[in-house]
């Protein structure tokens, strides 16, 4: 079974939503540097933010036609 990635538009929208979730988690720890905000920011916030960036990079790679270029 071949894994098909969603369209670039959908990837970008997902990346935006994830970034919108990650940003407040990280900002929360800066505003209120107590145990839970810091733990959440350094784990969950970072993980969601990284996933968002990865989706964005996949969209960029697709936009640049990297897969076709690599095949050549």
């Amino acid at each position, binding site marked *: 079974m071949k894994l098909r990635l969603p369209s670039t538009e959908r990837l970008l929208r997902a990346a*935006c939503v994830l*970034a919108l979730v990650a940003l407040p988690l990280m900002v929360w*720890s800066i505003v209120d540097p107590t145990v839970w905000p*810091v733990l959440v920011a350094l784990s969950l916030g970072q993980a969601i933010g990284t996933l968002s960036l990865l989706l964005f990079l996949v969209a960029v790679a697709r936009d640049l036609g990297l897969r076709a270029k690599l095949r050549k």
Partner: protein
Amino acid sequence: MAAAILITFLVRRPALEGTTKLWLLMGIGVFPIATAATANVSGFAATQSRTFCGSCHVMIPHASDSNDPHSTSLSAIHARSDQFGHDNCYTCHKDYGMYGYVLTKMGGMRHVYLYLTKYHSMPLEEAKHDIRVVSPVPNENCMSCHTTTAPGWNKVPDHASALSDVRKGALSCASPGCHGYAHPYTKLGKELPAK
């Protein structure tokens, strides 16, 4: 700023042309990375403060003692020094050496894990009795400020006679007969044999 860019993209659904991509690069890449870096720096700085250590209820007695301006415990005396200040727990308990910061943070994660799984609902009186430091604070930590090579240090007869044991770590600086335990609630157990 990043949130404004992202919400605009989600609501307005602009065509994916060059300008939009550039805005997305800022909204998903540049600004969130800057936010994450700031959160990391401020988060790691926060984890070094006494307030942070004392936010787990089992550490409240130690933190309160350090906060007490009238306390004569080693930890409280050091907390009143500008070089330790609000970070006195971290300054004494951290690992010194090349990988000290990483090792200390890994040890801290172990504390978080143990607190969440084991000590979270432990009554304070029980915690005072049961929770012990995993290993005594090594003399190297004391010696990072109180050098044993200074003439003033060696002028103290007890220092001079115990020099070799202190340097080897065979005799703890924070032990009865020397400077006493660091905290009023320091306990001896199997893992902390009396020296």
